[in-house]
């Protein structure tokens, strides 16, 4: 096994350091910010497995978080809280396996639109189920304290970061890189593309399911339009554009950047926040398509060629 490279150690250490420092500030506010930050990191890392490494851009990743949250409220009271969150993660992974086979047959813009449509479809299915049951939002009372949720989410962020690092190193990562670059050529040199894509899709769904369950525990209620809010999917993609999605650094940079920016601006100047965010997105797409991580590599040309080897 090769030694860890900076592109592997930097994001891991960054997440660990933030997780260790925030509780020392002694305020629930910082725990809340950290909880959100780690949630976004876990989501963006998961997204990176299928969209960054394999090049299948998902615009519906919220669906997995929504499923995780929904499973948590459905099992609330019937099983222990942690079991509900784990079941949420498993359900999200299972859902990805089931829909992956047909969905992963299309590429490029068609895949983007399909994932978006699938997430909206799932949202309305859940909304209608809840309406039929006569439930309009479900309250979760007596969930775990914020410290517990904070550490659970920090663990999720670390797990997501590790997942990207490990995936890039193993055979799966090499195969996904080949799929991203040229799927027909990948299949022809022996990459089992269908199996690998499906595996990547399922891997990228499990952690968001867990994160979605934690989100519900934190807010204390479940409401489908909020749990399946497409803005969550857009935000994940935005973080990947700003941070980069070639390796585990990008999601950490992107999430950190966006969470800090929104904490600084959102409460005081919400309109300015959206304008700045829009300008930043345009700027990154035009001038730094590989995000902050790409900018760092450009300054240090030894960063070299991309992806797994």
């Amino acid at each position, binding site marked *: 096994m090769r030694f860890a490279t900076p592109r592997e150690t930097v994001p891991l250490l960054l997440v660990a350091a933030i997780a260790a420092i925030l509780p020392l500030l002694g305020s629930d506010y910082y725990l809340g910010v950290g909880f959100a930050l780690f949630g976004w990191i876990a989501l963006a890392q998961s997204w990176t497995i299928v969209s960054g490494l394999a090049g299948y851009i998902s615009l519906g990743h919220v669906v997995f978080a929504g499923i995780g949250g929904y499973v948590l409220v459905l099992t609330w009271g019937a099983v222990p809280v942690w079991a509900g969150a784990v079941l949420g993660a498993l359900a999200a992974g299972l859902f990805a396996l089931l829909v992956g086979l047909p969905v992963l047959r299309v590429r490029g813009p068609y895949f983007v639109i399909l994932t978006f449509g699938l997430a909206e479809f799932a949202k309305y299915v859940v909304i209608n189920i809840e309406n039929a049951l006569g439930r309009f939002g479900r309250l979760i009372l007596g969930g775990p304290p914020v410290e517990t949720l904070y550490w659970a989410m920090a663990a999720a962020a670390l797990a997501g970061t590790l997942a990207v690092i490990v995936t890039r190193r193993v055979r799966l990562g090499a195969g996904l*890189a080949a799929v991203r670059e040229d799927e027909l050529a*990948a299949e*022809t040199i*022996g990459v089992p593309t269908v199996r690998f894509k499906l595996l990547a899709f399922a891997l990228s769904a499990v952690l968001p399911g867990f994160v979605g369950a934690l989100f519900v525990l934190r807010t204390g209620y479940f409401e489908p339009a909020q749990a399946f809010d497409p803005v969550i999917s857009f935000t994940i993609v935005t973080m990947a554009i700003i941070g980069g999605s070639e390796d585990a650094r990008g999601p950490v940079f992107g999430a950190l950047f966006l969470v800090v920016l929104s904490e600084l601006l959102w409460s005081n100047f919400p309109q300015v926040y959206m304008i700045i965010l829009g300008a930043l997105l345009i700027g990154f797409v035009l001038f730094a398509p590989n995000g902050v991580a790409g900018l760092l590599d450009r300054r240090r040309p030894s960063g070299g060629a991309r992806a797994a080897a």
Partner: protein
Amino acid sequence: MLTVDRIGKSFGGVRALHEISFTVPEGSIFGIMGANGAGKTTLFATIAGNLAPSAGEVRLRDLRLTGLPPHRIAGAGVARTFQIVRPFRGLSVRENVATGLRFGARNRAGAAAMDAAGILGLTGLEPVADRPAGALTLAQQKRLEVARALATGPQLLLLDEVMAGLTPAEVKEMIAMVRSIRSDMGVTVMIIEHVMGALMALSDHVVVLDHGETIAAGPPADVADDPAVQTAYLGRRR
């Protein structure tokens, strides 16, 4: 080693291949000739599994390849290059080869089990090994096609016009490379080539396709003298 048994392929009403049959002997260099649109690349695609034939079957020794997905055919020891090159552009040349090494044939016997350095050396890509594949010249990308295919550890290598667009000097190098792939690595080679001289010089056996049908087969010297071949290539004599 490879048996092509009455292969046919139609695209809608267009008959791209019809009743093609031949056997490629182990250790040979087997040439496929034919004008544009004769069905040569379609034939390779049906052998490698990229296209499903409409009729007939392809066997590698006792293994029926027809119906297997391409990655299983690669696993069985068949590799192909693409006439229109398809490198992993964003990856370095070395990573392209490394990916081939990491996948490909399950059973890498004898000389076919070369490492990345050996393959880069053989194909002359060592000096550009760390450049992104997309930044290479066409001649280099053609060699990378061969390098990546070799990295899969094949018993049978399908080369699709790896010399097209190359200068005469580059063609000479490529001929030497193909010979050493057969003699040093023990790989059986099937080759499609428009550069007639190169194909005749290399091949032990040639099949000529015209409009999807076999019009001649045999040693290169005999095939070159065949009236049907001359008609297909030079036009009908009056």
